[in-house]
């Protein structure tokens, strides 16, 4: 795929930060005192627009290069994307399972779509920036399932991720009981 790049320049990050901050401020303001700027749209639609703006800013941050976008940054980015993808796919599949077993459940609305986007975005941002700036014990080598199981005590972060996914799945399964009642 010659010529295909998906990353923005480092300087795009500041626009992403600005965009997300404005979005977050608008979301907080809209929550505290619902207001309308464009008469054509309701306050709830304004809130959704503010949320979209905040997420768009975070999206730009994710796809902007670091100041020193070296091999280590790329290695951490790859693993963070894998973790975020794993988290998001587990969430989507769990909700799909709950939804398919429940005739009454309304599956698609903007709230649930923001939740899907948020799960991926926040998991990635948390993992990547912890890994690149704070985690002294980042595991650069990926191990196989058996190696992970045999070294279960040393793989605390991995276990935490699996645990978080497990909790989400259990919550959704318990919701299934509520929805189908």
């Amino acid at each position, binding site marked *: 795929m010659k010529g295909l790049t998906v990353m923005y320049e480092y300087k795009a990050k500041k626009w992403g930060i600005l965009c997300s901050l404005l979005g977050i401020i608008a979301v907080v303001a809209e929550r505290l005192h619902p207001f309308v700027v464009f008469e054509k749209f309701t306050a709830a639609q304004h809130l959704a627009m503010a949320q979209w703006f905040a997420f768009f800013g975070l999206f730009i941050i994710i796809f902007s290069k670091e100041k020193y976008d*070296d*091999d*280590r940054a790329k*290695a951490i980015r790859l693993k963070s994307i894998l973790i975020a993808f794993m988290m998001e796919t587990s969430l989507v599949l769990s909700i799909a399972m709950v939804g398919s077993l429940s005739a009454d459940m309304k599956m698609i609305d903007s709230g649930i779509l923001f939740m899907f986007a948020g799960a991926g975005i926040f998991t990635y941002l948390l993992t990547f920036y912890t890994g*690149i700036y704070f985690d002294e014990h*980042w595991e*650069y080598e990926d191990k196989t399932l058996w190696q992970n199981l045999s070294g279960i005590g040393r793989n605390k972060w991995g276990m935490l991720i699996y645990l978080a996914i497990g909790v989400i799945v259990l919550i959704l399964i318990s919701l299934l009981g509520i929805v189908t009642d």
Partner: protein
Amino acid sequence: MKNNIKVERAKLNITQSDLAHAIGVSKQTIHSIESGRYVPSSVIALKIARYFNTTVEQVFELEEGD
């Protein structure tokens, strides 16, 4: 993989930040390489060796099990 980056830095009396800036990587990357937690790519290894005016083999050394 073992390395002598700390020794080579001490010879030149430079910090991790100085080395990082000179070869175009972050300070955290040099710290990770120096502590043996991150194995650099051949390009970064060559840049480090060139900065210290030596060979890659003089800076990096394979260990048992590598």
